[in-house]
């Protein structure tokens, strides 16, 4: 039943490795972009607040497929952004990472904002009384506490991101779901086997993330 695994025709590990790379790069990028967005949304400059709110509302309500296809069509083909490579395979991968960051950043931002809400008002008031500026209040008082309280929601974002990398197949990035599509077409009589292999792969990727970060969330949570 699983003999297609030995045929050497399909490089499963390679495909899942691409999925892992997509996840890791996008996770780092979305954490940074999401934090910046959250900073804009709670900051004192009205223009930036408006931009942050508008961006989150627009991007969060657009299907990821549209965003990733738009990265390929608009950024690459029209604006000529090649992200430092001439090879279409590399460009496609980088565009997918960019699209995933643009999308996932909004969810990181919203998680962080609810984390900021859990920090008692007195903390910020005390910090301001000491004469700290907004940036100082945010980076040294509020965000460190906010991050500790949102580890669990961020873990969910990370798991969702891992699964969302499959959408990169829409612009031909050779990750796990594209390989699964190809295998389903070629091995029509073994679709249950094919599916269980890929399902197993994703369980291996997402389950430990949930368990480890769940444990971390309990360890670092601010006791109030």
């Amino acid at each position, binding site marked *: 039943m699983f003999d297609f695994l030995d045929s050497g025709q399909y490089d499963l590990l390679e495909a899942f490795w691409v999925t892992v790379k997509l996840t890791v790069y996008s996770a780092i990028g979305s954490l940074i972009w999401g934090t910046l967005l959250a900073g804009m949304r709670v900051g004192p400059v009205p223009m930036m607040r408006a931009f942050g709110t508008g961006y989150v509302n627009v991007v969060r309500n657009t*299907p990821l497929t*549209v965003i990733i296809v738009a990265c390929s069509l608009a950024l690459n083909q029209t604006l000529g952004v090649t992200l430092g490579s001439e090879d279409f395979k590399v460009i496609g991968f980088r565009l997918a990472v960019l699209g995933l960051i643009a999308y996932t950043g909004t969810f990181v931002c*919203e998680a962080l904002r609810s984390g900021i809400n859990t920090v008692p008002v007195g903390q910020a008031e005390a910090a301001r009384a000491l004469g700290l500026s907004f940036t100082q209040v945010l980076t040294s008082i509020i965000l460190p506490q906010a991050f500790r309280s949102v580890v669990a929601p961020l873990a969910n974002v990370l798991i*969702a991101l891992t699964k969302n990398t499959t959408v990169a197949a829409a612009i031909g990035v050779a990750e796990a779901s594209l390989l699964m599509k190809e295998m389903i077409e070629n091995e029509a009589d073994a679709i249950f086997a094919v599916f269980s292999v*890929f399902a197993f792969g994703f369980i291996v990727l997402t389950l430990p993330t949930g368990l480890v970060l769940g444990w971390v969330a309990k360890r670092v949570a601010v006791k109030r």
Partner: protein
Amino acid sequence: MTSVLYDAPGPKAKTRNIIYTVVFVAVLGLVAWWVLGAMADKNQLAAEKWSPFVKDSNVWTTFLLPGLLETLKAAGLALAIALPLGALLGIGRLSDHAWIRVSVGTVVEFFRAIPVLMLMLFASAAFAGFTDLDSDIRPLYAVVTGLVLYNASVIAEIVRAGILSLPSGQTDAAKAIGMTKSQTMAFVLLPQAVTAMLPALVSQLVVIVKDTALGGVLLGLGELLYQARPITANYGANTIATLVVISLIYIVLNFILTSIASALERHARRTKKTTGAVVDIKKIDAGLGGGAA
């Protein structure tokens, strides 16, 4: 709450804010100028690429509106099936019998761990291989099956969280007046949990709507995003214009749904009839679903 983070701006801060605003707007303007310039340069702003959406009502009646209808149909069907299934699974996870709790828990965790896209691909192959479903309807079945499997698991978690959010006094009171476990669930816990769950459920609908777009690109369901293909084939590869129009439709539709969700949430928090507890979708699903595309 934001005002807690910074002092009310004095004269100096006001000037600084104005400078920040100007710089920020300038940067945004530069980006917009570069984008529009490049698009104009590449002839992407040409009237012939955009005018079909304004001048030719056939684009709407033949492609976009039927596409939107297909999107709504797939999303509606998925929600209608996933809702009762999810409620059952959610109650199952709270069962007193360990074997029900554990087996339902395994099913829920399994389907939450797998990308929706893969569930759809698998359902499509299974329907093609083992049933004689008509090819017209197969993509819809496959997409709805994938969405139901995933979203029933998420809804199960929403229902469980909704029931757990109720004060334990409710169960105790029900027991005290001699209600059975199923009576307690049906007449005491579930009706109250619904109010707490409603915002989360509407948010989940946004996720479902977005996920239907997966069915177009990779399975050929004639939903909204898929209509880009025949439109661009008819109007001279106006891919960018088409994508912009289609995303606007998604954004407006989902923005309406999101607004309803937050209105429901505000209502649930304010009203005195319930406990005021609200299930936070972020705790379950980070609001973006597993395959939220």
